[in-house]
């Protein structure tokens, strides 16, 4: 069956599974932050459940504990996701590059907690090993 070709949109075309989901997210210094586990989509009017009657856009990259839901099905509740606003995204390629430092984002709170509460209490844990 030959289908008509789609119009050629003016912007970069991204298929979610092909170009965004599971991609590594790097911060402005090239430090790995997380992977893109899901995306949050809103209508341009802010509606939470858009349909085809109004345009919808990606507002946030989502990252979270998805191992269990990928094995057993379902998805984490909305409150369990860590959101990275699309505003912070600087580039999309083989990785997703952010324009901010990773330690300013909520998604890295566990790393900061382990650094401050565990690593920092070890002898020599508060300075650069070099």
């Amino acid at each position: 069956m030959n289908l008509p070709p789609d119009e050629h949109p003016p912007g970069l075309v991204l298929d979610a599974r092909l170009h965004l989901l599971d991609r590594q997210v790097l911060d402005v210094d090239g430090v790995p932050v997380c992977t893109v586990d899901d995306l949050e989509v809103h209508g341009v009017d802010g509606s939470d459940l858009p349909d085809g009657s109004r345009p919808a856009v990606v507002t946030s990259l989502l990252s979270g504990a998805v191992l269990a839901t990928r094995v057993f099905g379902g998805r984490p509740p909305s409150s369990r996701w860590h959101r990275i606003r699309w505003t912070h995204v600087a580039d999309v390629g083989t990785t997703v590059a952010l324009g901010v430092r990773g330690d300013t984002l909520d998604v890295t709170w566990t790393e900061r907690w382990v650094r401050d509460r565990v690593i920092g209490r070890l002898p020599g844990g508060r300075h650069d090993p070099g």
Partner: protein
Amino acid sequence: MILGDLLDAPVNGPDDEPLGYVVDVRFVLDGPLDGTLAAPRLHGLLVSARTGTSFLGYERTGVRSPALVARWLRWRHRGTFLVHWQDVQAVEPGAVRLRDGYRRYSPDLPGRPSQRPDLHRAT
């Protein structure tokens, strides 16, 4: 809306006839400017009549190798089509319903991978 709720969802036509499953969602970076980049606008849904999953997008790119894998996956995803977001009447729990008079388009990505260095930069 979480995108994962759309992926793999069954797609029904205007008369509730089953059409397939959402295997991917296509965005275009031409939405309102949001920071450095334009916000990805939801352009359409890729619907496969035969399977709810897609592997490496063989059915929508010009990749032809490995030949056996490419032929197998293209055959498995035969009949895949793109439907514009404007043709989506409702996103219901566990299903997507298309509006009357919806149109099917080729799922091919505009620009073959070799023409898209933006997606193949070395890291």
